[in-house]
């Protein structure tokens, strides 16, 4: 039974730098795609959020509240709590406070019925609302970023020992380990590509690293900038990457994309 290779025509990784968006928000701390991948949300060190349209017009759209799900905002904070805020009733106090973590929450993801948190205490906690269970996986090193795989079976956890670990969601077993980047002091993002074929991570050496998810071999190194690449986000459907470094966000696309014209900068 031969391994069904993905269609060769399909580009898997963003290898081409398309444009740079000058955000003017100070250092961009996090950059995210929205659900359909049409907008990108950046949050800067000047305490602003900016929603931009990286694909076509590079205009500021709005300053928005960060919202993971339509009805609940879940915020992880440095005081080691995860707070679930209700958007509907707009209660001033959180619906529930998840204070199981022993140290600050560095990363947080939501799925349909799960809350995945990565904490500096070196644990990846998964709150399963449907089953009413809390799964706590000890990784050892402070977690910087967590994310679900697209199929919802695995959990990718980046930790400060410069390692990304792919853990099985159900059993907590390690399925893969990815090293090569540098992550020792900053809260760096890790991503899974849109088809779960590759694992990506920001790095402190100014590159974005991509590994083959299965083989674990380093597939790509994108030279994004000289400073720390702090946040990256992968497009939900396209091989398209946003990388935030220093004060700007860069958009990377697949090779096959016709060149629109280099680095652009917003009229700030």
């Amino acid at each position: 039974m031969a391994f069904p290779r993905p269609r060769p025509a399909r580009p898997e990784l963003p290898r081409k730098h398309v444009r740079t968006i000058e955000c003017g928000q100070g250092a961009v701390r996090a950059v995210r795609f929205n659900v359909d991948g049409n907008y990108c949300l950046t949050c800067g060190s000047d305490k602003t959020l900016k929603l931009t349209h990286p694909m076509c017009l590079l205009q500021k759209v709005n300053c928005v509240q960060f919202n993971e799900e339509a009805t609940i905002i879940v915020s992880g904070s440095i005081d080691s709590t995860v707070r679930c805020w209700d958007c509907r009733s707009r209660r001033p106090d959180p619906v529930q406070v998840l204070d199981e973590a022993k140290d600050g929450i560095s990363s947080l993801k939501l799925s349909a019925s799960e809350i995945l948190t990565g904490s500096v205490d070196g644990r990846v906690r998964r709150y399963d609302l449907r089953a009413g269970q809390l799964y706590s996986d000890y990784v050892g090193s402070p977690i910087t970023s967590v994310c679900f795989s697209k199929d919802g079976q695995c959990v990718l956890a980046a930790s400060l020992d410069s390692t990304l670990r792919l853990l099985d969601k159900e059993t907590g077993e390690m399925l893969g380990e990815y090293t090569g980047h540098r992550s020792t002091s900053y809260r760096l993002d890790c991503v899974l590509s849109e088809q779960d074929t590759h694992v990506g991570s920001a790095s402190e050496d100014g590159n974005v690293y991509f590994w083959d998810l299965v083989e674990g071999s380093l597939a790509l190194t994108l030279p994004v900038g000289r400073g720390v690449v702090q946040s990256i986000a992968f497009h939900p459907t396209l091989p398209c990457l946003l990388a935030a470094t220093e004060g700007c966000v860069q958009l990377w696309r697949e090779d096959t994309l016709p060149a629109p014209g280099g680095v652009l900068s917003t009229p700030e």
Partner: protein
Amino acid sequence: MAADSSDGEEEDLVNYGTALQPLQEGERIKKPVPLQEQTVKDAKGRYQRFHGAFTGGFSAGYFNTVGTKEGWTPSAFISSRQKRADRTVLGPEDFMDEEDLSEFGIAPKDITTTDDFASKAKDRIKEKARQIAGVVAAIPGTSALDDLIGPSKITIGVELLRKMGWKEGQGVGPRVKRKPRRQKPDPEVKIYGCALPPGLSEGSEDEEDEYQPENVTFAPKDVMPVDLTPKENVHGLGYKGLDPSQALFGASGREHLNLFAADSEDPSNLIGDVRNNRRRKLGITGQAFGVGALEEEDDDIYATETLSKYDTVLKDEEPGDGLYGWTAPKEYRSKKRSETEVKYIGKILDGFSLASKPSAPNKIYLPPDLPRNYRPVHYFRPVIAAGNENYHLQKVLEESTGKLGSDATQQSRHALNASQRREQLGETVLKGPAPSVLEYLSEKDRERLKEVKQASEQQMKAKMLPQQPRNSRFQPASPDDASHKWQMLLGGQLANAGSSDFKPFARDPEKQRRYESFVKSLKQGEKVDTLERYLDPNMTEWERGREQEEFFRAAMFYKSSNSALASRFTRAKYEDDADKVEVPRDQENDIDDKESAVKMKMFGKLTRDKFEWHPEKLLCKRFNVPDPYPESSIVGLPKVKRDKYSVFNFLTLSEPTTSVTQDTNERKQENNSVSKPKKPSRWDISDKEKEKKDSISEFISLARSKADLLQKPPVPTTEESGTKAAETLPSEADNENKDQEQEEESRPSMDLFKAIFVSSSDEKSSSEEESDEEQQPSTSVVDSETTGQAGLPGSSSSNIQDSVAVKAEPGVSSLPASKQEQNNAEEFGPKLPPSFSSGSTWQQETVVPASSPGPGRKEKHKKSREKHKTKRDHKHKKEKKKKHRKHKTKGKHKNKKSEKDSSSDTTDSSDSLSDTDSTNLSPKELLRRLKQLQY
């Protein structure tokens, strides 16, 4: 009633009920009216609502609304200016329907005989019978008379009595022969208004008086015998129940019949009765629910005032107010009336009699004459003699006691503090806690503090001892000065010091007592040197001086505001159980185990903790997820109360460890089956995962072999024990293959087990392997190095990986960019804390065992597996997997067998285990614990 048979032919037949009308030709049989249409309708064809079940039901207004179909229409407004005379007063009848005014309505208009005047028997049959009887009877026309005057409601008892010859007003009993009473109007009663014609009343009575035939007997008087039974009830003294004569006929009955009653002997009573009769109720009278048999009618509050309601005759109280009430004999009643004093005193209780002569009036003393120079203000003269030393103290005392001259009062009114005012006003002291801080400490802590204090004091004493002589030199001067100074300072505060609940030395009752007396004497204005006598004479001079200072300080410290503030705090309502603390029921296990598990890259069961977690209901709702625990009210992790300082709080036994400690090997295997440990190979995936259908794991498992093929050159370094054993013992394994395969699902690789028991199993297996084992330490280093030199980017061996990481770190950090990062670090958010104990130290740890045989052997395992794969490369993948599994199981089986063999000398093996595994560092922790628990 039986219908009379109309036809002569059918005389024999007896018919009951009304006959149906004979059916006519061609007429269709009427359908019976269905039940739902059998409704009751009133005269207007409206459905009866059956309001008022006892009055036959009625419907109010138009379908229970008002008036007509259009509803209630208010009458058109007519200005009263023009038509003032037309204004009519609306009565209740104006708002009634016709039905209400009809015979059966609420307010019937027709004149009918009311109940009071209706004849006894209303039904006509009886009437007829009586008419017949009246004709037949001896005196004809009685029934007609009866109809005319017969009172309405007569009970059967009265009727029976009447039948026996009793008449109203007579007593019951045998007739007696007596002289009838002289009936004379009361001389004192004067009759105003029209008096009865004298001839009518007195003449007849006189006649009666004179005519007294001997043989005439009279009916006994209607007098209730005086009840002389002792009082047994709980009614008040003098309580008389309802008057049965009133109850017998009710108010109306009395009015009619009392004409002939006993009271009517009195002519004044006759008038009274008339008056009673005239007390008619005017306006609409009505009773909502009727009056009970023994009740009187309520006073008509709506009655209009008429003159007739007032007494027009000056006379005694109504009869029945005397001692015996209505039961009082006539003689007593008349006698009583002579005594006028009784009137305003009221009833005289049994056993009492009126005093014959009035008591002497109270003597009133005149107020004394005031002296001419009297001024109604009192001056309190202070007791303390004024001295310049005690001036402040005096002032304070004066303030506190309020004994101040008029001039001083004006000044100090504003100078008073809250507590002084409180004392002046006589308010209660606010309940504050004893403000000693020590009160709040636990017993243990207090003792500890005490010990510390004692120790320090002893130290101090020891230190001070040599200094004592020098100190004593200053002593005579210093305490005086100090205390004087203190006294000056104390000023206003001293007033309350020690007075109330302030107990600064509550812990030391002796000292507290001393303090209190000290303060008391201080208040009284004693001199400082005399104050010293309240101090402990056993103490040294220095100590005494110190204590005095302490007392002063304490007195100073205690201000009124202190107590005011203290009152705001209350003692804990409940003994806060310091021993108990609420802790999560499940706690994350010990990190040490996990640390080692992470080190071995055995993620999974070992590193995972699973807790019951209760999400908030709203959260579930928002996530569109059913609440997993619908009946629980817990949110978050369930909590348990435990001892605060229990050892068990800190000693958390990790689950995997305990599971390993199970006695039987079977259990061990089962438990381990769930937690499949990882081999050092980075892509090692357990069988369970392989069987998973999800994309990634399949992807991985498939690619793993590929990757192995590509990356690992098939260089067989040494033959592996497992494979060898598997290959050399195929016959044995074949028999049990099927069983094993079935068990395969539940029982996974024995890798962890092997890792733990590898030495024992290897010992038992063959001499070859042993030799391999022994050789391994030397070769493993070379192996790891060679693989490391192979330069595979994602090197599989953990050791190498770690070492690479360690190597890489300084290299990376020395990059020029890193310096800039440092500069910009703050801009990029807070640096995360350095990885504690797991990052750096952990790596350091692993560097050392890299050369140790343990991981080397693991690597060997891995290699062997790779070798297997290469061998079976040409085969079909699935088959390969299966076979691989087979081999594994075989190996396992063998292991199991060997363990079973060695089960007799487990201790030996474990001993040897420990010996052999002392070199094996990574699972050492696990093993050690396991061993400890096995013993």
